[in-house]
């Protein structure tokens, strides 16, 4: 086991998959000469050359479409969004084209591509660079959505996403790039659609992913000191969603808190909460509680930004609420 950053883990995944399969290429803004806006593609231009590490103009809809066309005829593109907020410029290509071509063609043409980049709030990036974009995509049949929270998951899931035959939305986080964690030595992959219990507990289940996972783990540690045992379930992939793992945990703890960094109204947490209510209603001792971002654009001011995001205090309060403490 080596301890590396989330950024390095992604870099290793890209490197290994590009060595493994000549059809894989990386395309996006500043991925080559600049070494990546967040240095995820550092050194890749040197190893693979400009044919496979392709700098683009600022043209998200254009190069996302190019990726779709290339994927339809046999290549395996990785399209980098400098931040996932920019994917909104390409949303027609992603939602109307990439997600539907397999279906519209009656199964003839698939689109094996990964669209990846950071999403969610970071450090004072303000309204247009802070959105938790998974909630824009989870509604769309045909897309898979991955939101890894640890270096190990980031590497194993990115490798699986690149090998996957469907379009995969792979959302990283500016806040996680520098975080460190253990990563297995040698070749490994983590299948899409399989979550993981990140901390075992008895009293309450917190469902959290990406940056919210770290917050949940911190809250769980604090609550442990108060004698409250929290189980933290990380779905890792939001579509397909490992509902079995979530339900199993809730049936054990009888209480659930669902977290997400984005605005709560219509967020992915509504779906997870609904699934829990549907499939574990008889096991619940309290209504599902949600801890989400406020229903406002992300503000710039430090104090307002902090107030917009879920905090450890709010997680602790939510856990106590479902425990009726």
């Amino acid at each position, binding site marked *: 086991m080596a301890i590396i950053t989330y950024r390095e883990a992604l870099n290793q995944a890209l490197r290994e998959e590009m060595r493994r399969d000549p059809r894989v290429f990386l395309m996006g803004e500043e991925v080559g000469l600049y070494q990546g806006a967040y240095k995820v593609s550092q050194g890749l231009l040197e190893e693979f050359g400009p044919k496979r590490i392709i700098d683009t103009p600022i043209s998200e809809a254009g190069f996302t479409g190019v990726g779709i066309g290339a994927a339809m005829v046999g290549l395996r593109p990785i399209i980098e969004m400098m931040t996932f907020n920019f994917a909104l410029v390409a949303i027609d290509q992603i939602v109307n084209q990439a997600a539907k071509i397999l279906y519209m063609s*009656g199964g003839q043409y698939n689109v094996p591509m990964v669209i990846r980049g950071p999403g969610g709030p970071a450090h004072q990036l303000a309204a247009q660079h802070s959105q938790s974009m998974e909630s824009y995509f989870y509604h769309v049949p045909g897309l898979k959505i991955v939101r890894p929270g640890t270096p190990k998951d980031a590497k194993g899931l990115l490798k699986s996403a690149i090998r996957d035959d469907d379009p995969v939305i792979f959302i990283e986080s500016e806040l996680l790039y520098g975080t460190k964690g253990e990563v297995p030595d040698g070749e490994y992959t983590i299948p899409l659609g399989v979550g993981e219990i990140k901390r075992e507990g008895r009293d309450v289940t917190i469902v959290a992913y990406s940056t919210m996972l770290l917050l949940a783990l911190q809250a769980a540690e604090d609550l442990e000191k108060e004698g409250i045992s929290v189980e933290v379930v990380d779905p890792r992939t939001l579509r397909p969603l490992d509902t079995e793992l979530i339900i199993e945990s809730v049936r054990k703890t009888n209480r659930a808190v669902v977290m997400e960094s984005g605005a709560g109204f219509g967020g992915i947490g509504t779906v997870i909460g609904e699934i829990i209510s549907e499939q574990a209603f008889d096991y619940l001792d309290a209504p599902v509680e949600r801890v989400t971002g406020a229903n406002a654009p992300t503000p710039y001011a430090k104090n307002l930004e902090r107030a917009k995001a879920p905090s450890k205090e709010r997680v602790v309060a939510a856990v106590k609420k479902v425990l009726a403490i």
Partner: protein
Amino acid sequence: MRTLERKELVDLLRQMLLMRRFEEKCAEMYTMGKIGGFLHLYIGQEAVATGAISVLRPDDYVIASYREHGHALARGCDPGKIMAELFGRADGLCKGKGGSMHLFDKSHNFLGGHAIVAGQIPIGTGAAFASQYEGKDQVTLCFFGDAAVNQGVFHEAFNLAALWHLPIVYICENNRYGMGTAVERATPIKELYRRAEAYGIPGEAVDGMDVLAVRECVGLAVERARRERIPSLIEAKTYRFRGHSMADPGTYRTKEEIEREKQRDPLVLFRNHLTAEAMLKESDWKALEKEVRATVEEAVRYADASPEPPVEWLCTDVYVSER
């Protein structure tokens, strides 16, 4: 371009005639309720797809908009499977899941009909990118209408194709109206081929009612793309004789205008040309008509005989991994 033999010329005529009779039948089937949704007919524009696609090799790629029945036929897709798709049947090209606007045929490298205006332009550009990436000498023909040139991705795709020297020929079928909006009401520069200047690539206009002129012009552009990796924009000036879709009230143009344009019916023009060149006798034409009508009738029979797709197919082909 080499001169075509009589047989090849008659093949072009047969192709255009098949498109015409096939779509006249589609209109009839739509009125009978056998075809639903939106039905956009290509009638009047047949010379464009026929001439352009006739220069391709089987391994080249074709991608088009939602007005793509003609392109699919020209590419060699089975008329029965196309009709079955329009009927929403299990034996349709796309198992009845695509419909009129989304015909795809992998066996003919037909990358589909796409129904978001201009949405197919970057995708076609991606197919050309893949050919270049893999060192193959395939060419992509990317068809779209005049209204597509005002969408953002038109610009983005052209910029990328020119920047990366991709082997693609963009064919803008200027039928003078984006739905009900005339070209001059949509863009200040009416010579759409001149858009190419902005990207430093060749742009040319061609008479889209003249199948041989289209063939010549696109043929040169395809060779340029294949050998020199120079993308081109061809503006085929044409006219749609029918409404935008079957639901078109036709309030935006006059009957006189349509009648005037019909004087330049590409099918009649080419038939007259071949007759004048002594390559087509009245009896040849009658034989073609008979043959094509039989093909269309057979397509309808095939589509009628095909069952509806089973309900179990509803959620298949959403993900490869869940097929």
